[in-house]
Protein backbone atom coordinates (compact mmCIF):
# COMPACT_ATOMS: atom_id res chain seq x y z
CA UNK A 1 0.00 0.00 0.00
CA UNK A 2 1.44 3.37 -1.03
CA UNK A 3 0.92 6.40 1.21
CA UNK A 4 -0.92 8.26 -1.57
CA UNK A 5 -3.59 5.55 -1.57
CA UNK A 6 -4.63 6.13 2.04
CA UNK A 7 -7.45 8.21 3.49
CA UNK A 8 -7.13 11.30 5.70
CA UNK A 9 -8.02 9.38 8.85
CA UNK A 10 -5.58 6.56 8.08
CA UNK A 11 -2.78 9.06 7.46
CA UNK A 12 -3.59 11.09 10.58
CA UNK A 13 -3.25 7.88 12.60
CA UNK A 14 0.16 7.21 11.06
CA UNK A 15 1.27 10.81 11.65
CA UNK A 16 0.13 10.68 15.26
CA UNK A 17 2.08 7.51 16.00
CA UNK A 18 5.13 8.76 14.13
CA UNK A 19 4.88 5.90 11.66
CA UNK A 20 5.23 8.36 8.79
CA UNK A 21 5.80 12.05 8.13
CA UNK A 22 4.00 14.67 6.11
CA UNK A 23 7.14 15.03 4.03
CA UNK A 24 6.92 11.35 3.09
CA UNK A 25 3.18 11.56 2.36
CA UNK A 26 3.59 14.70 0.27
CA UNK A 27 6.52 13.22 -1.65
CA UNK A 28 4.46 10.11 -2.29
CA UNK A 29 1.56 12.18 -3.66
CA UNK A 30 3.86 14.14 -5.98
CA UNK A 31 5.47 10.90 -7.22
CA UNK A 32 1.99 9.74 -8.07
CA UNK A 33 1.25 13.05 -9.80
CA UNK A 34 4.44 12.67 -11.85
CA UNK A 35 3.37 9.17 -12.85
CA UNK A 36 -0.27 9.77 -13.88
CA UNK A 37 -0.89 13.49 -14.39
CA UNK A 38 0.19 13.27 -18.03
CA UNK A 39 -2.77 10.95 -18.66
CA UNK A 40 -5.36 12.48 -16.33
CA UNK A 41 -4.59 16.23 -16.43
CA UNK A 42 -6.40 16.94 -13.17
CA UNK A 43 -4.47 20.10 -12.32
CA UNK A 44 -4.11 23.56 -13.83
CA UNK A 45 -1.39 24.64 -11.37
CA UNK A 46 0.81 22.42 -9.22
CA UNK A 47 2.16 23.85 -5.95
CA UNK A 48 5.01 21.40 -5.43
CA UNK A 49 7.51 23.75 -3.83
CA UNK A 50 5.16 25.35 -1.32
CA UNK A 51 3.62 21.94 -0.59
CA UNK A 52 6.99 20.45 0.36
CA UNK A 53 7.69 23.48 2.57
CA UNK A 54 4.26 23.18 4.21
CA UNK A 55 4.88 19.48 4.79
CA UNK A 56 8.19 20.23 6.52
CA UNK A 57 6.42 22.79 8.72
CA UNK A 58 3.71 20.26 9.51
CA UNK A 59 6.32 17.74 10.61
CA UNK A 60 7.87 20.37 12.90
CA UNK A 61 4.49 21.02 14.49
CA UNK A 62 3.78 17.32 14.92
CA UNK A 63 7.13 16.94 16.69
CA UNK A 64 6.12 19.71 19.08
CA UNK A 65 2.82 17.97 19.71
CA UNK A 66 0.81 20.70 17.95
CA UNK A 67 -1.27 18.53 15.70
CA UNK A 68 -4.30 20.14 14.08
CA UNK A 69 -7.22 18.34 12.46
CA UNK A 70 -5.49 18.15 9.05
CA UNK A 71 -1.84 18.63 9.86
CA UNK A 72 0.31 17.34 7.04
CA UNK A 73 -2.49 16.12 4.75
CA UNK A 74 -2.09 16.93 1.00
CA UNK A 75 -5.26 18.52 -0.33
CA UNK A 76 -6.14 19.90 -3.78
CA UNK A 77 -8.29 22.96 -4.44
CA UNK A 78 -10.52 23.61 -7.43
CA UNK A 79 -9.10 26.60 -9.29
CA UNK A 80 -12.13 28.65 -8.25
CA UNK A 81 -10.81 29.33 -4.73
CA UNK A 82 -8.82 32.51 -4.33
CA UNK A 83 -5.35 31.59 -3.09
CA UNK A 84 -3.06 34.41 -2.09
CA UNK A 85 -0.09 34.68 -4.43
CA UNK A 86 -1.12 31.61 -6.48
CA UNK A 87 -2.71 31.98 -9.95
CA UNK A 88 -6.47 31.43 -9.85
CA UNK A 89 -7.99 31.04 -13.31
CA UNK A 90 -11.47 29.60 -12.74
CA UNK A 91 -10.74 27.66 -15.93
CA UNK A 92 -10.98 30.86 -17.96
CA UNK A 93 -8.68 32.72 -20.28
CA UNK A 94 -10.03 35.98 -18.86
CA UNK A 95 -8.37 35.12 -15.50
CA UNK A 96 -5.21 33.75 -17.11
CA UNK A 97 -3.00 36.25 -15.27
CA UNK A 98 -5.04 36.74 -12.11
CA UNK A 99 -3.17 36.33 -8.83
CA UNK A 100 -5.49 36.92 -5.86
CA UNK A 101 -4.26 39.21 -3.09
CA UNK A 102 -6.09 37.16 -0.45
CA UNK A 103 -7.13 33.63 0.56
CA UNK A 104 -10.71 32.39 0.51
CA UNK A 105 -12.11 31.73 4.00
CA UNK A 106 -12.10 27.98 3.35
CA UNK A 107 -8.45 28.16 2.27
CA UNK A 108 -7.62 30.07 5.46
CA UNK A 109 -9.43 27.47 7.55
CA UNK A 110 -7.70 24.56 5.83
CA UNK A 111 -4.34 26.28 6.26
CA UNK A 112 -5.03 26.86 9.96
CA UNK A 113 -5.99 23.18 10.28
CA UNK A 114 -2.57 22.22 8.92
CA UNK A 115 -3.40 21.15 5.34
CA UNK A 116 -0.71 20.95 2.66
CA UNK A 117 -1.92 22.31 -0.70
CA UNK A 118 -0.91 20.24 -3.73
CA UNK A 119 -2.31 22.56 -6.37
CA UNK A 120 -5.29 24.04 -8.19
CA UNK A 121 -7.47 21.65 -10.15
CA UNK A 122 -9.04 21.89 -13.57
CA UNK A 123 -12.68 22.83 -13.98
CA UNK A 124 -15.27 23.92 -16.49
CA UNK A 125 -14.84 27.61 -17.22
CA UNK A 126 -16.44 29.56 -14.34
CA UNK A 127 -17.90 26.20 -13.21
CA UNK A 128 -20.27 26.22 -16.18
CA UNK A 129 -20.36 22.69 -17.47
CA UNK A 130 -20.83 19.06 -16.56
CA UNK A 131 -17.72 17.53 -18.06
CA UNK A 132 -14.71 19.83 -17.43
CA UNK A 133 -14.48 20.16 -21.22
CA UNK A 134 -15.21 23.91 -21.23
CA UNK A 135 -11.95 24.66 -19.39
CA UNK A 136 -9.61 26.98 -21.26
CA UNK A 137 -6.77 24.75 -20.08
CA UNK A 138 -7.53 21.41 -21.67
CA UNK A 139 -9.69 18.40 -20.87
CA UNK A 140 -9.40 16.31 -17.70
CA UNK A 141 -9.77 12.58 -18.30
CA UNK A 142 -11.69 10.14 -16.14
CA UNK A 143 -9.12 7.92 -14.37
CA UNK A 144 -11.43 4.91 -14.85
CA UNK A 145 -11.47 5.34 -18.64
CA UNK A 146 -9.27 7.97 -20.21
CA UNK A 147 -11.62 8.31 -23.19
CA UNK A 148 -14.35 9.57 -20.88
CA UNK A 149 -15.07 12.80 -19.02
CA UNK A 150 -14.65 12.96 -15.23
CA UNK A 151 -17.86 14.94 -14.81
CA UNK A 152 -17.95 18.60 -13.94
CA UNK A 153 -17.65 21.27 -13.21
CA UNK A 154 -15.21 20.17 -10.45
CA UNK A 155 -13.87 17.37 -12.66
CA UNK A 156 -10.22 18.05 -11.87
CA UNK A 157 -10.79 17.70 -8.12
CA UNK A 158 -12.77 14.47 -8.56
CA UNK A 159 -10.21 12.97 -10.94
CA UNK A 160 -7.33 14.00 -8.66
CA UNK A 161 -8.85 12.13 -5.71
CA UNK A 162 -9.82 9.08 -7.80
CA UNK A 163 -6.33 8.92 -9.33
CA UNK A 164 -4.67 9.38 -5.89
CA UNK A 165 -3.09 12.67 -6.99
CA UNK A 166 -4.10 14.14 -3.61
CA UNK A 167 -5.63 12.69 -0.45
CA UNK A 168 -8.79 14.80 -0.67
CA UNK A 169 -9.94 17.82 -2.65
CA UNK A 170 -12.38 20.70 -2.61
CA UNK A 171 -14.89 21.75 -5.22
CA UNK A 172 -17.96 23.91 -5.60
CA UNK A 173 -21.47 22.79 -6.45
CA UNK A 174 -24.01 25.06 -8.16
CA UNK A 175 -26.13 22.38 -9.82
CA UNK A 176 -24.27 19.17 -9.06
CA UNK A 177 -20.66 20.12 -9.71
CA UNK A 178 -19.41 18.16 -6.67
CA UNK A 179 -21.82 15.22 -6.56
CA UNK A 180 -21.94 14.47 -10.29
CA UNK A 181 -18.15 14.19 -10.81
CA UNK A 182 -17.82 12.32 -7.48
CA UNK A 183 -20.30 9.73 -8.78
CA UNK A 184 -18.60 9.47 -12.18
CA UNK A 185 -15.16 9.07 -10.56
CA UNK A 186 -16.19 6.61 -7.82
CA UNK A 187 -15.57 8.77 -4.76
CA UNK A 188 -17.57 10.61 -2.06
CA UNK A 189 -18.75 14.18 -2.77
CA UNK A 190 -20.75 16.34 -0.36
CA UNK A 191 -22.66 19.54 -1.06
CA UNK A 192 -23.60 21.18 2.24
CA UNK A 193 -26.66 23.31 2.93
CA UNK A 194 -26.73 26.76 1.34
CA UNK A 195 -25.17 29.02 3.98
CA UNK A 196 -23.36 26.25 5.89
CA UNK A 197 -19.90 27.07 4.47
CA UNK A 198 -18.56 30.55 3.80
CA UNK A 199 -18.03 31.37 0.13
CA UNK A 200 -15.82 34.38 0.77
CA UNK A 201 -13.08 34.11 -1.84
CA UNK A 202 -14.95 31.56 -3.94
CA UNK A 203 -15.28 33.06 -7.42
CA UNK A 204 -19.02 33.57 -7.83
CA UNK A 205 -21.06 31.80 -10.52
CA UNK A 206 -24.69 31.79 -9.31
CA UNK A 207 -24.80 33.30 -5.86
CA UNK A 208 -28.12 31.85 -4.71
CA UNK A 209 -26.95 28.32 -5.61
CA UNK A 210 -23.16 28.07 -5.17
CA UNK A 211 -21.88 26.00 -2.26
CA UNK A 212 -18.47 24.63 -1.25
CA UNK A 213 -17.81 21.02 -0.37
CA UNK A 214 -15.28 18.17 -0.16
CA UNK A 215 -14.27 15.23 -2.38
CA UNK A 216 -12.98 12.31 -0.33
CA UNK A 217 -12.14 8.62 -0.54
CA UNK A 218 -14.67 7.75 2.16
CA UNK A 219 -17.44 9.26 4.29
CA UNK A 220 -15.31 9.58 7.42
CA UNK A 221 -12.95 11.91 5.56
CA UNK A 222 -15.92 14.03 4.47
CA UNK A 223 -16.92 14.40 8.14
CA UNK A 224 -13.36 15.42 9.05
CA UNK A 225 -13.31 18.11 6.36
CA UNK A 226 -16.78 19.39 7.22
CA UNK A 227 -15.60 19.91 10.79
CA UNK A 228 -12.91 22.23 9.44
CA UNK A 229 -14.88 24.26 6.89
CA UNK A 230 -18.42 24.63 8.27
CA UNK A 231 -19.61 27.73 10.10
CA UNK A 232 -20.58 31.36 9.97
CA UNK A 233 -18.21 33.93 8.50
CA UNK A 234 -18.81 37.62 9.18
CA UNK A 235 -17.27 38.38 5.75
CA UNK A 236 -19.94 36.34 3.97
CA UNK A 237 -23.40 37.69 4.62
CA UNK A 238 -25.23 34.61 3.30
CA UNK A 239 -23.39 32.24 5.63
CA UNK A 240 -25.73 31.25 8.43
CA UNK A 241 -24.93 31.59 12.15
CA UNK A 242 -26.23 28.11 12.90
CA UNK A 243 -24.45 25.85 15.38
CA UNK A 244 -21.99 23.39 13.80
CA UNK A 245 -22.03 19.89 15.27
CA UNK A 246 -19.01 17.56 15.41
CA UNK A 247 -19.72 15.64 12.21
CA UNK A 248 -17.58 12.70 13.31
CA UNK A 249 -20.12 11.88 16.01
CA UNK A 250 -22.50 10.78 13.24
CA UNK A 251 -20.13 8.08 11.97
CA UNK A 252 -20.62 4.42 12.77
CA UNK A 253 -24.24 4.81 13.88
CA UNK A 254 -26.97 2.85 12.16
CA UNK A 255 -30.15 4.10 10.55
CA UNK A 256 -32.55 1.60 12.07
CA UNK A 257 -36.07 2.94 12.16
CA UNK A 258 -35.33 5.75 9.72
CA UNK A 259 -37.70 6.59 6.92
CA UNK A 260 -35.91 6.87 3.60
CA UNK A 261 -37.91 8.51 0.81
CA UNK A 262 -37.51 7.30 -2.77
CA UNK A 263 -38.75 10.09 -5.08
CA UNK A 264 -40.56 8.37 -7.92
CA UNK A 265 -39.74 11.18 -10.34
CA UNK A 266 -36.06 10.16 -10.21
CA UNK A 267 -36.69 6.82 -11.87
CA UNK A 268 -37.62 8.07 -15.29
CA UNK A 269 -37.07 7.27 -18.91
CA UNK A 270 -33.51 7.89 -19.97
CA UNK A 271 -31.88 6.50 -16.86
CA UNK A 272 -29.23 3.92 -17.71
CA UNK A 273 -30.42 0.39 -16.78
CA UNK A 274 -27.16 -0.46 -15.02
CA UNK A 275 -27.41 2.75 -12.96
CA UNK A 276 -31.01 1.97 -12.07
CA UNK A 277 -30.11 -1.60 -11.05
CA UNK A 278 -27.31 -0.33 -8.80
CA UNK A 279 -29.69 2.15 -7.13
CA UNK A 280 -32.30 -0.59 -6.61
CA UNK A 281 -29.59 -2.65 -4.88
CA UNK A 282 -28.69 0.37 -2.73
CA UNK A 283 -32.34 0.62 -1.66
CA UNK A 284 -32.22 -3.05 -0.60
CA UNK A 285 -29.06 -2.40 1.40
CA UNK A 286 -30.75 0.51 3.17
CA UNK A 287 -33.79 -1.65 3.95
CA UNK A 288 -31.47 -4.37 5.22
CA UNK A 289 -30.24 -1.91 7.86
CA UNK A 290 -33.71 -1.61 9.32
CA UNK A 291 -34.76 1.59 7.57
CA UNK A 292 -38.16 1.88 5.93
CA UNK A 293 -38.03 2.90 2.27
CA UNK A 294 -41.17 4.68 1.11
CA UNK A 295 -42.10 6.11 -2.26
CA UNK A 296 -42.46 9.88 -2.17
CA UNK A 297 -43.28 12.43 -4.83
CA UNK A 298 -41.43 15.63 -5.66
CA UNK A 299 -43.99 16.64 -8.27
CA UNK A 300 -42.11 19.61 -9.71
CA UNK A 301 -38.90 17.66 -10.34
CA UNK A 302 -39.29 17.76 -14.10
CA UNK A 303 -39.13 21.55 -14.07
CA UNK A 304 -35.86 21.80 -12.11
CA UNK A 305 -33.65 21.93 -15.17
CA UNK A 306 -35.63 24.72 -16.83
CA UNK A 307 -35.70 26.74 -13.60
CA UNK A 308 -31.99 26.21 -13.07
CA UNK A 309 -31.07 27.28 -16.59
CA UNK A 310 -32.87 30.57 -16.07
CA UNK A 311 -31.81 31.33 -12.49
CA UNK A 312 -28.14 30.30 -12.78
CA UNK A 313 -27.39 32.17 -16.04
CA UNK A 314 -29.28 35.24 -14.78
CA UNK A 315 -27.10 35.39 -11.69
CA UNK A 316 -24.00 34.52 -13.70
CA UNK A 317 -24.61 37.30 -16.21
CA UNK A 318 -24.59 39.72 -13.31
CA UNK A 319 -21.62 38.16 -11.47
CA UNK A 320 -19.49 38.00 -14.60
CA UNK A 321 -20.08 41.65 -15.45
CA UNK A 322 -17.01 42.40 -13.32
CA UNK A 323 -14.68 40.85 -15.92
CA UNK A 324 -14.32 43.90 -18.10
CA UNK A 325 -10.62 44.12 -18.85
CA UNK A 326 -9.98 46.61 -16.04
CA UNK A 327 -9.23 44.74 -12.81
CA UNK A 328 -8.29 41.09 -13.34
CA UNK A 329 -5.24 40.96 -15.54
CA UNK A 330 -6.66 40.27 -18.99
CA UNK A 331 -7.27 43.05 -21.54
CA UNK A 332 -7.63 42.79 -25.31
CA UNK A 333 -5.15 44.71 -27.48
CA UNK A 334 -5.92 47.67 -29.73
CA UNK A 335 -9.14 49.03 -28.32
CA UNK A 336 -10.75 52.16 -29.79
CA UNK A 337 -12.46 53.27 -26.60
CA UNK A 338 -13.82 51.98 -23.31
CA UNK A 339 -16.86 50.20 -24.78
CA UNK A 340 -14.72 48.58 -27.45
CA UNK A 341 -12.27 47.48 -24.76
CA UNK A 342 -15.06 45.86 -22.72
CA UNK A 343 -16.44 44.00 -25.70
CA UNK A 344 -13.11 42.87 -27.11
CA UNK A 345 -11.77 41.77 -23.73
CA UNK A 346 -14.91 39.84 -22.80
CA UNK A 347 -15.31 38.28 -26.24
CA UNK A 348 -11.69 37.13 -26.33
CA UNK A 349 -11.57 36.15 -22.66
CA UNK A 350 -14.73 34.04 -22.29
CA UNK A 351 -15.35 30.68 -23.95
CA UNK A 352 -18.49 29.62 -25.82
CA UNK A 353 -20.42 28.06 -22.92
CA UNK A 354 -19.83 31.07 -20.68
CA UNK A 355 -20.98 33.41 -23.44
CA UNK A 356 -24.04 31.25 -24.03
CA UNK A 357 -25.01 31.49 -20.37
CA UNK A 358 -24.30 35.21 -20.14
CA UNK A 359 -26.57 35.63 -23.16
CA UNK A 360 -29.39 33.52 -21.67
CA UNK A 361 -29.09 35.35 -18.37
CA UNK A 362 -28.98 38.81 -19.90
CA UNK A 363 -31.98 37.96 -22.06
CA UNK A 364 -33.95 36.54 -19.11
CA UNK A 365 -33.31 39.67 -17.06
CA UNK A 366 -33.85 42.14 -19.87
CA UNK A 367 -36.73 44.54 -20.03
CA UNK A 368 -39.90 42.84 -21.23
CA UNK A 369 -38.75 39.30 -20.49
CA UNK A 370 -38.08 39.46 -16.74
CA UNK A 371 -41.57 38.35 -15.70
CA UNK A 372 -41.78 35.58 -18.30
CA UNK A 373 -38.45 34.04 -17.37
CA UNK A 374 -36.74 35.09 -14.13
CA UNK A 375 -39.86 35.77 -12.10
CA UNK A 376 -41.62 32.67 -13.42
CA UNK A 377 -38.56 30.52 -12.67
CA UNK A 378 -38.33 31.94 -9.13
CA UNK A 379 -41.99 31.10 -8.55
CA UNK A 380 -41.52 27.53 -9.73
CA UNK A 381 -38.42 27.40 -7.54
CA UNK A 382 -40.67 28.12 -4.55
CA UNK A 383 -42.84 25.15 -5.55
CA UNK A 384 -39.75 22.92 -5.89
CA UNK A 385 -38.59 23.88 -2.40
CA UNK A 386 -42.13 23.22 -1.16
CA UNK A 387 -41.89 19.66 -2.54
CA UNK A 388 -38.79 19.06 -0.42
CA UNK A 389 -40.39 20.62 2.68
CA UNK A 390 -43.29 18.18 2.31
CA UNK A 391 -41.02 15.16 1.74
CA UNK A 392 -38.88 15.93 4.78
CA UNK A 393 -41.97 16.03 7.00
CA UNK A 394 -42.20 12.27 6.40
CA UNK A 395 -38.62 11.25 5.65
CA UNK A 396 -35.26 11.44 7.40
CA UNK A 397 -33.41 11.38 4.09
CA UNK A 398 -34.15 10.90 0.41
CA UNK A 399 -32.31 8.41 -1.82
CA UNK A 400 -31.85 8.89 -5.59
CA UNK A 401 -29.35 8.15 -8.33
CA UNK A 402 -26.69 10.88 -8.49
CA UNK A 403 -26.54 10.83 -12.28
CA UNK A 404 -28.73 9.29 -14.99
CA UNK A 405 -25.77 7.60 -16.71
CA UNK A 406 -22.15 6.66 -15.99
CA UNK A 407 -19.35 8.85 -17.40
CA UNK A 408 -19.90 9.70 -21.05
CA UNK A 409 -17.30 10.02 -23.78
CA UNK A 410 -15.16 13.11 -24.30
CA UNK A 411 -16.80 15.27 -26.96
CA UNK A 412 -20.08 13.34 -26.89
CA UNK A 413 -22.28 16.20 -25.65
CA UNK A 414 -20.27 19.29 -26.47
CA UNK A 415 -22.42 20.34 -29.44
CA UNK A 416 -25.75 19.87 -27.69
CA UNK A 417 -26.11 22.13 -24.63
CA UNK A 418 -29.42 20.63 -23.53
CA UNK A 419 -28.08 17.04 -23.58
CA UNK A 420 -25.13 18.24 -21.51
CA UNK A 421 -27.44 20.03 -19.06
CA UNK A 422 -29.52 16.85 -18.65
CA UNK A 423 -26.57 15.06 -17.01
CA UNK A 424 -27.25 17.21 -13.92
CA UNK A 425 -30.94 16.39 -13.80
CA UNK A 426 -30.79 14.59 -10.42
CA UNK A 427 -28.50 17.02 -8.62
CA UNK A 428 -29.93 20.43 -9.54
CA UNK A 429 -32.98 20.23 -7.28
CA UNK A 430 -30.99 20.34 -4.04
CA UNK A 431 -29.28 23.58 -5.06
CA UNK A 432 -32.63 25.17 -5.90
CA UNK A 433 -34.05 24.07 -2.53
CA UNK A 434 -30.80 24.83 -0.65
CA UNK A 435 -30.70 21.38 0.96
CA UNK A 436 -27.54 19.26 1.37
CA UNK A 437 -26.73 16.18 -0.71
CA UNK A 438 -24.01 13.56 -0.77
CA UNK A 439 -22.94 11.09 -3.46
CA UNK A 440 -21.47 7.78 -2.33
CA UNK A 441 -20.11 4.98 -4.57
CA UNK A 442 -22.68 2.19 -4.99
CA UNK A 443 -21.17 -0.08 -7.65
CA UNK A 444 -19.75 -0.34 -11.14
CA UNK A 445 -21.12 -0.94 -14.60
CA UNK A 446 -20.07 -4.11 -16.45
CA UNK A 447 -17.54 -1.94 -18.28
CA UNK A 448 -16.08 -0.95 -14.91
CA UNK A 449 -17.37 2.62 -14.64
CA UNK A 450 -18.34 3.83 -11.15
CA UNK A 451 -21.94 4.59 -10.15
CA UNK A 452 -23.05 6.86 -7.28
CA UNK A 453 -26.09 6.96 -5.03
CA UNK A 454 -27.26 10.30 -3.69
CA UNK A 455 -28.72 10.98 -0.27
CA UNK A 456 -30.41 14.31 0.48
CA UNK A 457 -31.55 15.75 3.80
CA UNK A 458 -33.27 18.85 5.15
CA UNK A 459 -31.54 22.18 5.73
CA UNK A 460 -28.50 21.90 8.04
CA UNK A 461 -28.90 18.12 8.33
CA UNK A 462 -25.42 17.26 7.01
CA UNK A 463 -24.96 15.15 10.14
CA UNK A 464 -27.88 13.00 9.12
CA UNK A 465 -26.40 12.64 5.62
CA UNK A 466 -23.05 11.58 7.04
CA UNK A 467 -24.74 9.11 9.38
CA UNK A 468 -26.74 7.57 6.57
CA UNK A 469 -23.90 7.58 4.02
CA UNK A 470 -21.39 6.05 6.43
CA UNK A 471 -23.88 3.36 7.49
CA UNK A 472 -24.56 2.60 3.83
CA UNK A 473 -20.87 2.55 2.96
CA UNK A 474 -20.20 0.06 5.77
CA UNK A 475 -23.16 -2.18 4.98
CA UNK A 476 -22.96 -2.16 1.17
CA UNK A 477 -19.32 -3.30 1.13
CA UNK A 478 -18.84 -2.05 -2.41
CA UNK A 479 -15.69 -3.69 -3.69
CA UNK A 480 -12.79 -1.24 -3.33
CA UNK A 481 -11.22 -0.94 -6.76
CA UNK A 482 -8.64 1.51 -8.04
CA UNK A 483 -8.50 2.82 -11.57
CA UNK A 484 -5.76 1.20 -13.65
CA UNK A 485 -3.44 3.99 -14.69
Amino acid sequence: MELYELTIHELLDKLRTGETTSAAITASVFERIDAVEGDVHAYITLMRESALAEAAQADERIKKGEMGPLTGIPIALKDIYCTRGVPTTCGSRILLNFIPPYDATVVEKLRAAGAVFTGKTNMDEFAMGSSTETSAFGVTRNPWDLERIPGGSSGGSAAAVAADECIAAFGSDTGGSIRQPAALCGIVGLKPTYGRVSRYGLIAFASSLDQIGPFTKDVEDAAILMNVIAGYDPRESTSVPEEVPDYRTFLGKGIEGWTVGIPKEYFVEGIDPEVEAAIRRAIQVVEGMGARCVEVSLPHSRYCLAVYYIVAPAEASSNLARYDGVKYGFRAEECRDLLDMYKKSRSAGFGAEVKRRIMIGTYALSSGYYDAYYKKASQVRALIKGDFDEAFKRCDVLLTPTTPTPAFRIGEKMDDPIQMYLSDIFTISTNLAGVPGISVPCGYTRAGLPIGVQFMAGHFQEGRLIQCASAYEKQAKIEKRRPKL
Partner: protein
Amino acid sequence: MERQKISREEVAYVANLARLSFTEEEEGRFTSQLNDILLYMDQLNEIDTAGVEPLTHAIAQKNAFRDDAVGGAIPLEDALANAPESRGGFFLVPKVIE
Protein backbone atom coordinates in the same frame (compact mmCIF):
# COMPACT_ATOMS: atom_id res chain seq x y z
CA MET B 1 -46.33 26.52 -30.04
CA GLU B 2 -44.23 29.37 -31.29
CA ARG B 3 -40.94 27.93 -32.57
CA GLN B 4 -39.04 31.17 -33.13
CA LYS B 5 -38.32 32.54 -29.67
CA ILE B 6 -35.42 34.80 -30.46
CA SER B 7 -34.27 36.48 -33.66
CA ARG B 8 -30.79 37.26 -34.86
CA GLU B 9 -31.48 40.95 -34.24
CA GLU B 10 -32.45 40.23 -30.63
CA VAL B 11 -29.29 38.20 -30.16
CA ALA B 12 -27.27 41.16 -31.41
CA TYR B 13 -29.21 43.47 -29.06
CA VAL B 14 -28.65 41.22 -26.02
CA ALA B 15 -24.98 40.77 -26.94
CA ASN B 16 -24.56 44.54 -26.77
CA LEU B 17 -26.24 44.64 -23.33
CA ALA B 18 -23.86 41.89 -22.19
CA ARG B 19 -20.86 43.70 -23.70
CA LEU B 20 -20.05 40.84 -26.03
CA SER B 21 -19.45 40.90 -29.75
CA PHE B 22 -19.88 37.96 -32.12
CA THR B 23 -18.79 37.08 -35.60
CA GLU B 24 -21.54 36.41 -38.18
CA GLU B 25 -21.02 32.69 -37.74
CA GLU B 26 -21.16 32.87 -33.92
CA GLU B 27 -24.26 35.02 -34.05
CA GLY B 28 -26.01 32.41 -36.19
CA ARG B 29 -24.99 29.55 -33.90
CA PHE B 30 -25.97 31.40 -30.71
CA THR B 31 -29.34 32.31 -32.21
CA SER B 32 -30.18 28.71 -32.93
CA GLN B 33 -28.82 27.39 -29.60
CA LEU B 34 -30.52 30.10 -27.53
CA ASN B 35 -33.72 29.40 -29.42
CA ASP B 36 -33.55 25.69 -28.47
CA ILE B 37 -32.86 26.56 -24.85
CA LEU B 38 -35.71 29.09 -24.68
CA LEU B 39 -38.08 26.54 -26.26
CA TYR B 40 -37.08 24.11 -23.52
CA MET B 41 -37.95 26.81 -20.93
CA ASP B 42 -41.49 27.00 -22.33
CA GLN B 43 -42.48 23.99 -20.25
CA LEU B 44 -42.61 26.28 -17.22
CA ASN B 45 -45.76 27.79 -18.68
CA GLU B 46 -47.55 24.50 -17.94
CA ILE B 47 -47.53 25.43 -14.26
CA ASP B 48 -50.01 27.83 -12.73
CA THR B 49 -47.97 30.10 -10.49
CA ALA B 50 -50.65 32.69 -9.78
CA GLY B 51 -50.17 33.98 -6.25
CA VAL B 52 -46.88 32.07 -5.69
CA GLU B 53 -44.30 34.24 -3.99
CA PRO B 54 -41.00 34.05 -5.97
CA LEU B 55 -38.15 32.35 -4.10
CA THR B 56 -34.75 33.89 -4.74
CA HIS B 57 -32.83 32.40 -1.80
CA ALA B 58 -33.61 28.98 -0.34
CA ILE B 59 -32.52 30.02 3.15
CA ALA B 60 -34.30 33.21 4.07
CA GLN B 61 -31.85 35.68 5.55
CA LYS B 62 -32.87 39.09 6.73
CA ASN B 63 -30.35 41.92 6.75
CA ALA B 64 -26.98 40.65 7.91
CA PHE B 65 -25.53 43.23 10.24
CA ARG B 66 -22.10 43.34 11.79
CA ASP B 67 -20.45 45.77 14.16
CA ASP B 68 -19.17 48.89 12.45
CA ALA B 69 -15.59 48.18 13.45
CA VAL B 70 -12.49 48.99 11.45
CA GLY B 71 -10.89 45.82 10.16
CA GLY B 72 -7.98 44.96 7.88
CA ALA B 73 -8.06 45.98 4.23
CA ILE B 74 -6.15 44.89 1.16
CA PRO B 75 -3.32 47.37 0.53
CA LEU B 76 -3.77 49.61 -2.51
CA GLU B 77 -0.79 48.21 -4.39
CA ASP B 78 -2.07 44.65 -3.88
CA ALA B 79 -5.53 45.62 -5.11
CA LEU B 80 -4.01 47.20 -8.22
CA ALA B 81 -1.50 44.43 -8.83
CA ASN B 82 -3.77 42.65 -11.31
CA ALA B 83 -4.69 45.76 -13.29
CA PRO B 84 -3.59 45.62 -16.93
CA GLU B 85 -2.85 49.32 -16.51
CA SER B 86 -2.84 51.58 -13.47
CA ARG B 87 -1.57 55.04 -12.68
CA GLY B 88 -1.35 57.07 -9.49
CA GLY B 89 -3.33 54.56 -7.43
CA PHE B 90 -6.14 54.20 -9.96
CA PHE B 91 -7.20 51.66 -12.56
CA LEU B 92 -6.45 53.10 -15.98
CA VAL B 93 -8.91 52.62 -18.86
CA PRO B 94 -9.09 53.94 -22.43
CA LYS B 95 -10.53 57.41 -22.82
CA VAL B 96 -14.28 57.50 -22.15
CA ILE B 97 -15.20 61.01 -23.30
CA GLU B 98 -13.78 62.46 -26.49
